[in-house]
């Protein structure tokens, strides 16, 4: 293989790894000891939110405006792809003292 081709493949790999996540990122949010962190997350439409439940208790990520209601069994994670821009407050239906906010840009 010519060095030039190798370099272009390497460049393509670098390029893909930078560009693809920038277009649609997966953002991880942790639920541990009844705390959602980070409590405020910025994201863009098309991004995937992955909630990771580290507790032995079931939780939900439930949008106050009804946009999503994701159930998280103990020690499991679940994802949701953001479809609409806006600031969405969400909470856990089982433990409404668990609260957080998503700031979704277009």
């Amino acid at each position, binding site marked *: 293989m010519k060095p030039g081709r190798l370099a272009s493949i390497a460049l393509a790999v670098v390029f893909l790894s930078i560009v693809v996540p920038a277009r649609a990122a997966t953002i991880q949010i942790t639920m541990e*000891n*009844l*705390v959602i962190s980070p409590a405020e997350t910025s994201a863009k439409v098309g991004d995937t939110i992955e909630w990771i439940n580290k507790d*032995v*208790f*079931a939780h939900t990520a439930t949008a106050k405006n009804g946009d999503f209601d994701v159930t998280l069994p*103990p020690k499991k994670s679940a994802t949701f792809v953001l479809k609409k821009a806006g600031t969405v407050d969400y909470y*856990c*239906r*089982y*433990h*409404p*003292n*668990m609260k957080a906010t998503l700031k979704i840009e277009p």
Partner: protein
Amino acid sequence: MFTRWSAAIAAAILLSSPALLRGASAADKPTDPQIAHIAYTAGVIDITAAKQAQKKAKSKDVKAFAEDMLRDHEAVNKQALALVKKLNVTPEDNDTSRALSKQASDKLAELDKLSGAAFDKAYVANEVAYHKAVNGALETQLIPSAGNAELKSLLQTGLKIFQGHQQHAEHVAAELK
């Protein structure tokens, strides 16, 4: 001295009176084996109440709430059992636990006489009051008295869960009206 403390805390839990809790002397601290027993008993009480509600509740929301209580309190108690085993602590029965159990079985009998919407209302109202009282006891007595760091941490997690349950119960109660 422990008896006096237990009587105070039991009364506080039963009557939901934070004033009584504050009245308990700091010197009358329960021991870790006693704290473990009280916390475990408090969980068992809510599990028993939830099982009764699963059989008797009419509203879908109340049934779902009971199922949430059952699941969470069983999970907490499973953790508590694992912890006492790890720490090689034997939970010790005490006046507070006994008073709690007595009061709970009276409440169970009282609720058993109700049915339909009346049961739903009374069960949820009791859940609000019960979690409020247990949270008060956790905050002001059980957590500050716990010696072992892991026990303290489990009680702190328990407090956050029960505060969540209290809010959840308040929400269900509001929906029933």
